[in-house]
């Protein structure tokens, strides 16, 4: 017991010093003291509930991916059949019941059609994207495989994450965390974000831009009733536009999609003084756009964003430069948002906000302040109580407690963990419980002295016997905290982290470190009685 080798003392002391030093930058920032920038400064991250900011959980609609795949497949099938020589005529195409079926007109074309379809149904590698069956001699049925759907969703989520990344980076100054969660979810955490609504509007916008010709043959009454002529589809006007509430029929095929954009900027149209978004197509897109506008001069075409019509201007002259203006009753801000969204590309799938937690920066600062005050008072009272109860041994326990607080802060800073509001509660609880180990030890030493053991022996037995109870008792706390971490969400996870770190460091400081001090005292002073 008295034998505490020098190397071990040095090792323990250096550990204490290093970890405590790591706590200083965090301590400085929490109490408002300036930390010199030239020094290394690992600091504890403040959770969104303390620093202010937004946590947004987005979920993709997997059914939408499935129907998009059906649509793409339908187009692909039509195009290979048309391009075959001689072309294969097909009919009775249907995408009902989440599968694609169609008939070839002549039974003699079945084998040829099957050959053409094979490369479409087999995806990359060994994965089979679709199952292909021929029923009733001439009817082809294509059913997407689960494997293929899963892979498509996975891919869509990956690129959705990239798109969100680009959009948030475009507003600058934030340090967002964007992570995929599960199969179909993305978490966005933006600390310090002042305006969560703007953030959500930016992230949530699919930004699928399309240019399609207006179907002028459609009867207005049919369009209002939602009945589209064959080959057309009906879209509503977007909210906030002059025709909001109205609908328009546009041709399904022959339009241009916005995915061939190279740039988008918010500008003002000098003639009308209107906020517009100027877009720039790549070479291929520019050629397509030129062809569309040349062939349809004096006809209206619809600018469609996320399945809503922004405007439907007339094509006055062919547009050849690959530049176009999108008008749609924008404000300067909404034009800028659309420009960012278009520049960063369209989301491959609609994302809906299914959970949102935001905390204003003022509330966060208030919480830190009152939390810190409460922590200060609590710690002070505990220190005092230990001192008046156990005297010298209480002082050792107090020193261990202060060290413990520094170590928790230091370890949290080094591990780059996040301090949340419940984390502060965890901290307070740790302070209260950390002295438990010393209480156990000190009570045991008292007891052994009463039984008539001599000083050194009483201390020795006190530490040994109490350690067993300390170990068992703290393991249960770790079990509870680990489960909290595994199942907890957000701030609760932060609580669990503080609890686990606190249990480990408190056992270390309360048992090992105080033992070193007590041993040093016994060696130095050789007391014949203990004041405990």
């Amino acid at each position, binding site marked *: 017991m008295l034998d505490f080798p020098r190397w071990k003392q040095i090792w323990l002391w250096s550990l204490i010093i290093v970890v405590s030093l790591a706590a200083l930058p965090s301590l400085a920032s929490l109490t408002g003291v300036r930390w010199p920038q030239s020094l290394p400064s690992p600091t504890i991250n403040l959770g969104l509930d303390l620093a202010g900011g937004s946590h947004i*959980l987005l*979920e993709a609609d997997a059914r939408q991916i499935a129907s998009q795949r059906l649509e793409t497949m339908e187009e692909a099938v039509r195009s290979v059949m048309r391009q075959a020589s001689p072309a294969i005529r097909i009919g009775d195409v249907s995408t009902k019941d989440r599968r694609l079926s169609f008939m070839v007109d002549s039974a003699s074309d079945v084998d040829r059609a099957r050959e053409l379809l094979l490369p479409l149904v087999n995806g990359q590698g060994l994965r089979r994207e679709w199952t292909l069956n021929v029923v009733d001699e001439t009817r082809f049925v294509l059913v997407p495989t689960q494997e293929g759907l899963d892979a498509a969703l996975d891919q869509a989520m990956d690129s959705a994450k990239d798109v969100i990344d680009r959009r948030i980076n475009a507003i600058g100054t934030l340090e967002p965390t964007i992570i995929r969660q599960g199969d179909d979810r993305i978490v966005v955490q933006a600390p310090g974000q002042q305006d969560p*609504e703007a953030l*959500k509007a930016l992230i949530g916008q699919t930004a699928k831009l399309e240019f399609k010709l207006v179907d002028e043959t459609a009867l207005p009454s049919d369009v209002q009733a939602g009945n589209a002529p064959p080959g057309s589809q009906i879209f509503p006007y977007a909210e906030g536009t002059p025709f909001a509430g109205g609908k328009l029929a546009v041709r399904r095929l022959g339009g241009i999609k916005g995915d061939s954009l190279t740039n988008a900027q918010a500008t003002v149209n000098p003639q009308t003084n209107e906020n517009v978004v100027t877009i720039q197509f790549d070479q291929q897109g520019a050629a397509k756009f030129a062809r569309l506008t040349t062939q349809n001069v004096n006809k209206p075409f619809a600018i469609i964003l996320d399945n809503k019509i922004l405007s439907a201007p007339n094509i006055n002259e062919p547009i050849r430069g690959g530049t176009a203006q999108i008008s749609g009753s924008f404000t300067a801000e909404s034009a800028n948002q659309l420009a960012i969204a278009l520049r960063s590309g369209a989301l491959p799938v609609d994302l*809906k*906000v*299914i959970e*949102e*937690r*935001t*905390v*204003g920066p*003022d509330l966060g600062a208030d*919480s830190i302040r*009152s*939390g810190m*005050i*409460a922590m200060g*008072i*609590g710690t002070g*009272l*505990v220190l005092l109580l230990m001192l008046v*109860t*156990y*005297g010298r041994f209480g002082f050792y326990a107090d020193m261990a407690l202060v060290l413990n607080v520094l170590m928790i802060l230091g370890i949290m800073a080094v591990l780059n963990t996040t301090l949340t509001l*419940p984390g*502060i*509660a965890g901290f*307070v*609880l740790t302070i*209260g*419980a950390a002295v*438990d180990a010393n*209480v*156990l030890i000190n*009570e045991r030493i*008292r007891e052994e002295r009463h039984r008539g053991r001599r000083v050194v022996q009483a201390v020795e037995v006190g530490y*040994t016997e109490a*350690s067993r*109870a300390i*170990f*068992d*008792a*703290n*393991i*249960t*706390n770790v*079990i*509870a905290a680990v*489960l*909290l971490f595994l*199942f907890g*969400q*957000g*701030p*609760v996870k932060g609580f669990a982290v503080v609890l686990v770190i606190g249990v480990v460091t408190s*056992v270390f400081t309360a*048992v090992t470190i105080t*033992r070193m001090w007590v041993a040093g005292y016994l060696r130095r002073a050789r007391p014949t009685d203990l*004041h405990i």
Partner: protein
Amino acid sequence: MKLLKLVPDHTNIHFLKWRVPFYAISLLLIAASWGLVLTKGLNLGVDFVGGQMIRVTFVGKPDAPVASMRDEIAALGYGDPIIQRFGQPNEASIRMKLPEGSDERPDLANTMSQRITSALKTAHPEVRIDGVDSVSGKVSGELFQTGLLSLLFAMIAISIYIWVRFEWQFGVGGLFALFHDVSLTLGMFALTQLEFDLNIVAAILTIIGYSLNDTIVIYDRIRENLKKFRKMPLPELLDLSVNETLARTVMTSLTVLIALIPLLLFGPASLFGLTAAITLGIFVGTYSSIYMAAPLLIWFGVRSDSFVPTDTGRDQAERTARGEA
């Protein structure tokens, strides 16, 4: 300097003499708690039922205009909000549950909170939105499930641990004490109708950890005394063990309490529920360690030869904990 002694030396209280009445009281309390939970129900927060919780401050105003806020929000047609004072008089929290049939629209909670905040901003330019929690039905269902599971797993895992380290009687005794603590805490939340959210699940898990802490210290002493006094009758031995550890029990409960009470009084309003739950748990947990966990061992028939007299406790992990490794 004279040192403070909370529990006098050679204290010998006959705790176990009263075990039958105390068991009756405990069983009554457990039954009452579950009765309250089942009849009155828990005031589940948005974490578990979906909807939103919006916190606002009316900057520069003495009071939050609760009545007019209620009208403005009800006018949106989502139903009546629950508006409460939250901290200062000019601060309020607005709670809104999800309307029926919102399962089909995962983003409804979010649309609602957007419309409510913009309606408030239009009507009261001085309002400051301090925080918005909006949770859809789907997410809240998942949170409820994982919250419940974590409680269940924690209780099972800890009991198994005690069983392995001690004997099965101790595992069952500990589990029962846990059940007691969790029941009473839930009962308190049903009675006070304090909001029950994710933070409270964390609080209950903490209570479980703390209460077990207490129980194990007593169990550890029981095990030790069982080996030491092989002829002593069990009730007497349990009394002795509880008394021997009493000074520690009182001292530790007190330190945790004095650390928690400032947080309860001066801490942020959003932590009140969490701190209140833990504070109650300290009392309940201490009581259950003495009056539930220990006496149960008599009925389960723990005997001194339940333990092999060799030193079972000295494994590597403990030595690490003591810093001897």
